[in-house]
């Protein structure tokens, strides 16, 4: 009774987006999806001048071998994706997110693997230098820690761009390649660096991994190239553009030639860093900072003259044709002659089995901690919940002058924003909103729930900043352990089933939320066999959301604002402690350690789920409350649950909160520790002025919206449950616990 799925991507990822787009059109609205899935990045409509472009990539294997160079290439490489979308988008903001093993890792590690602290330092510095020197601020940054990222770190880097609605009289997203257009390569020169980059990235990391496969970026060369290309773009000097990333010229020219029906490329004309490269090396090199363009014959002279004036290398390497072949020559010698049909459609479909068998894990055995003050402080100091401000401040977050809600907010700007808000250009009012959801810990129990949880988290954070619910687009980045059944991967069918369930979870909830998936990327071999030990990452899905806000002056932050403001809890809390940070703390308190490659105990079993019928009415009501300007602060419980949400809002506002949870029957029904630390989805903590309390309650009539307390002038967070004061902590005490862990590394 096996089910056959023809392509997860077409069925679930593109499937959702086509359905959302159809629904929008059926309502009589005009589609806001400008270009999805076929260009280098997703494009959505923003305003009458510019579209929004967004892409997130991973650069995991290179960062494992050479953390600085690999990660820098991660950021400057993904910069070229928006730039190579349509006829070229200007870069607005970067995002980054990393999954590492603990920087304090003390146990032995397999031979050949760098210490996670060295990887972390190098990855940060590479993306810091790459982003800062490119003049692009960062909008979001997260770090996740788990021992299973010892083998391969995950390094997510993304870039938002703005694509003019019209460029030189034509829609900005249109790219054409006509027979006769010249193949022009611009930017850096070709060397032996980055040969095999794409193939090695898609293999398990072992001792044979070639270090020269890592491409080394040079942000300044690229910045100068971009500045030049924007000038050329606006003068209409080229018809199409794409980046040279994985596969180098073989990929960029091969892809562009599809539009014209062929190409003739002379590798002998390519500018080289040094002599001695074989033709195949020139063809495949992933040397950085290069774009490939189609330049109409009549524009070539002006294009090359402008490049010369801007001190940017540009070379004509051949001509796009309609011959039906990709002809590659090296001077007089033909080195490749590939049929275009075979090149693009020739790969056979894979037939991959997937078998889903739910796993069960032990629940915590010992008694629950009674002292919730100590527990909350322990939670605040945990790697996955604590502040990483020391590293994050090295990244510029406000160059360009368009950042409205910065990554760090609150009275001392030391608590991360739920979502960040940016203008798209000076003089505008409308803004875009960035957030994300990621939680590989839930994958151990069920990737269906994991995928829905991370999408829900990203959407909730959007609403906390004031984004419109009907203009949230999402990107999906899957980083999976090898899911292909083989002697080295005896559990491949299970991992493939985890992938299927994640895709289904995402499909079901994106349809319910009408949140299209506009771009994404998969990375399917995140395993290491260094030193003969196999370490696989937990299945990780990053959902990166980009939303819109009509007037950035209405944006919200999570810090509580004034004494006397009323605190409301929206949504329901369930016993959903499976995969929670609290359970991992309990495991540590009980002196349990994860076996190598296994999840850290306790994992538990009751993973947070999402019921859109329950959550959507709350989200719509919150959107209304925000639009009517009732809400003064908004935060959403996620990792660490309610207690962490209260702590973050109080720490950010540097004001006390007096909270009595006995107003919420769902919380009273739970054990106090579960009530505080369960990670149920669909919840918010908001504050409003006392005079607006009735108006807020009217908007939420019939929905789970409980008045639970007030903001105070005191300097402590006090939380009562079951008639007992369970938490009573000074804000300064919480802040030191929150900041100390990663303050000096």
């Amino acid at each position: 009774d096996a089910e056959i799925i023809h392509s997860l991507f077409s069925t679930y990822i593109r499937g959702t987006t086509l359905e959302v787009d159809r629904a929008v059109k059926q309502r009589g609205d005009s589609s806001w999806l400008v270009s999805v899935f076929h260009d280098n990045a997703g494009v959505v409509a923003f305003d009458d001048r510019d579209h929004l472009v967004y892409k997130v990539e991973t650069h995991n294997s290179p960062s494992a071998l050479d953390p600085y160079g690999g990660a820098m290439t991660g950021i400057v490489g993904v910069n070229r994706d928006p730039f190579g979308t349509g006829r070229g988008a200007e870069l607005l903001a970067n995002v980054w997110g990393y999954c590492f093993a603990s920087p304090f890792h003390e146990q032995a590690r397999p031979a050949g693997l760098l210490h996670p602290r060295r990887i972390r330092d190098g990855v940060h510095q590479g993306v810091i230098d790459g982003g800062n020197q490119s003049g692009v601020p960062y909008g979001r940054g997260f770090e996740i820690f788990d021992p299973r990222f010892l083998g391969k770190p995950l390094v997510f880097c993304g870039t938002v761009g703005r694509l003019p609605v019209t460029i030189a009289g034509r829609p900005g997203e249109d790219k054409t390649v006509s027979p006769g257009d010249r193949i022009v390569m611009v930017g850096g020169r070709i060397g032996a660096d980055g040969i095999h980059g794409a193939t090695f990235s898609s293999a398990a990391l072992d001792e044979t991994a070639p270090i020269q496969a890592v491409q080394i970026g040079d942000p300044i060369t690229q910045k100068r190239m971009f500045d030049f290309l924007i000038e050329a773009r606006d003068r209409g000097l080229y018809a199409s553009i794409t980046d040279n990333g994985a596969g180098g010229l073989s990929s960029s020219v091969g892809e562009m030639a599809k539009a014209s029906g062929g190409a003739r490329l002379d590798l002998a004309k390519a500018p080289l860093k040094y002599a001695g490269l074989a033709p195949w090396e020139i063809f495949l090199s992933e040397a950085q900072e290069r774009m490939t363009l189609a330049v109409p014959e009549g524009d070539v002279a002006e294009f090359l003259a402008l490049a010369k004036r801007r001190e940017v290398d540009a070379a004509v390497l051949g001509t796009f044709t309609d011959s039906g072949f990709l002809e590659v020559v090296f001077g007089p010698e033909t080195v490749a002659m590939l049929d275009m049909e075979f090149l693009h459609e020739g790969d056979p479909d894979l037939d991959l089995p997937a078998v889903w068998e739910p796993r069960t894990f032990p629940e915590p055995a010992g008694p629950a901690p009674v002292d919730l003050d100590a527990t909350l402080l322990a939670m605040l100091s945990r790697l996955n919940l604590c502040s990483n401000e020391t590293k994050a401040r090295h990244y510029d977050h406000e160059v360009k002058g368009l950042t409205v809600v910065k990554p760090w907010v609150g009275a001392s700007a030391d608590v991360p924003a739920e979502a960040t808000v940016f203008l798209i250009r000076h003089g505008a009012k409308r803004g875009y909103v960035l957030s994300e959801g990621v939680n590989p810990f839930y994958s151990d129990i069920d990737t269906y729930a994991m995928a829905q949880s991370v999408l829900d988290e990203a959407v909730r954070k959007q609403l906390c900043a004031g984004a419109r619910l009907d203009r949230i687009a999402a990107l999906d980045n899957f980083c999976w352990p090898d899911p292909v059944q083989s002697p080295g991967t005896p559990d491949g069918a299970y991992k493939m089933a985890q992938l299927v369930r994640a895709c289904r979870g995402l499909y079901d909830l994106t349809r319910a939320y009408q949140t299209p998936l506009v771009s994404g990327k998969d990375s399917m071999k995140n395993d290491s066999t260094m030193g003969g030990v196999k370490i696989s990452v937990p299945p990780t899905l990053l959902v990166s959301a980009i939303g819109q806000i009509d007037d950035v002056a209405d944006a919200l932050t999570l810090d509580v604002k004034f004494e006397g403001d009323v605190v409301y809890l929206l949504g329901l809390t369930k016993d959903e402690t499976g995969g929670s940070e609290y359970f991992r703390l309990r495991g540590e308190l009980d002196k349990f350690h994860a076996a190598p490659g296994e999840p850290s105990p306790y994992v538990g079993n009751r993973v947070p789920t999402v019921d859109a019928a329950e959550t959507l009415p709350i989200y719509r009501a919150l959107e209304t409350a925000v639009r009517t300007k009732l809400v003064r602060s908004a935060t959403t419980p996620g990792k660490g649950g309610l207690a962490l949400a209260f702590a973050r809002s109080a720490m950010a506002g540097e004001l006390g909160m007096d909270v009595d949870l006995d107003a919420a029957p769902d919380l009273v029904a739970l054990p106090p520790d579960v009530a505080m630390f369960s990670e149920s989805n669909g919840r918010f903590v908001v504050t409003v002025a006392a005079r607006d309390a009735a108006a807020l309650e009217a908007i939420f009539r019939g929905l789970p919206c409980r008045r639970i307390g007030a903001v105070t002038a005191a300097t402590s967070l006090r939380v009562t449950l079951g008639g007992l004061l369970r938490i009573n902590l000074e804000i300064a005490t919480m802040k030191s616990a929150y900041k100390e862990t990663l303050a000096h590394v």
Partner: protein
Amino acid sequence: MSEPRVLILTGLGLNCEAETEAAFAMAGAKPDKVHLLDLLDGTAPHKLADYPILAFIGGFAFGDHLGAGSVFANKIRWRLYDDLLAFIAKGGLALGVCNGFQTMVRLGLLPGLDGDFKTPRATLAQNDRPGYRDAWVTLGFDPASPCLWTRGIDTMELPSRHGEGKFLADAAIADRLEREHLVVARYLGPDGIPTEEWPFNPNGSPSAVAGVCDPSGRLFGLMPHPDAYLYPFHHPQWTKRKLSGVQTAEGDGMKIFRNGVWAAMGYVD
């Protein structure tokens, strides 16, 4: 004189052109972003002499290789210096922010003592705590300074965003800067007193020096970014300030651009 023209030098790794252009435009000037190479080879529509205001903006010119601002300064030194000296002699106004300040110091435009704008007399060295850092600081301004760009400004919060901002000069030069009130801006601690203590002073500058001007007050360089505080919502605490009713109509950084534009229009002397 209406709408003074502003020459904003761009390219080669600089990156604060959009916000600087917006700032000068809001201040009532007519900014032109001009690629340095176009100015050097004469293909730009105007020459330096056509502008009363010159802006050296922030960024990473040439990746800050060989020291922040060095290569960019050398391009100017060898190919634009005569024009630049003529611009200064005519009473031109110049603002250098961050990488632009570094460039002005490398060129010798600042502190520009005794009419010598060619001899570098100071440097902006690596921060005591290494690495680039983006965090807001509070600046205090010297009311006795001749600086035309900072008239009427007492204190101002701005973001500091650099890795090389520690202002160093030998003792004799440092003394003169103090005596002649050429230290325009200093980093203040929470008590409102100039401080060398991190993070209030982000780089460890002795005497908390954040910005200096030349004796005419027309050339001004500053490490923190006034171009990053143009709108009320640039302030890190704006969401609370807005609800408190203390929000200003525009960002404080605009005061510096308005002062410069007014000076160019002849309203300040």
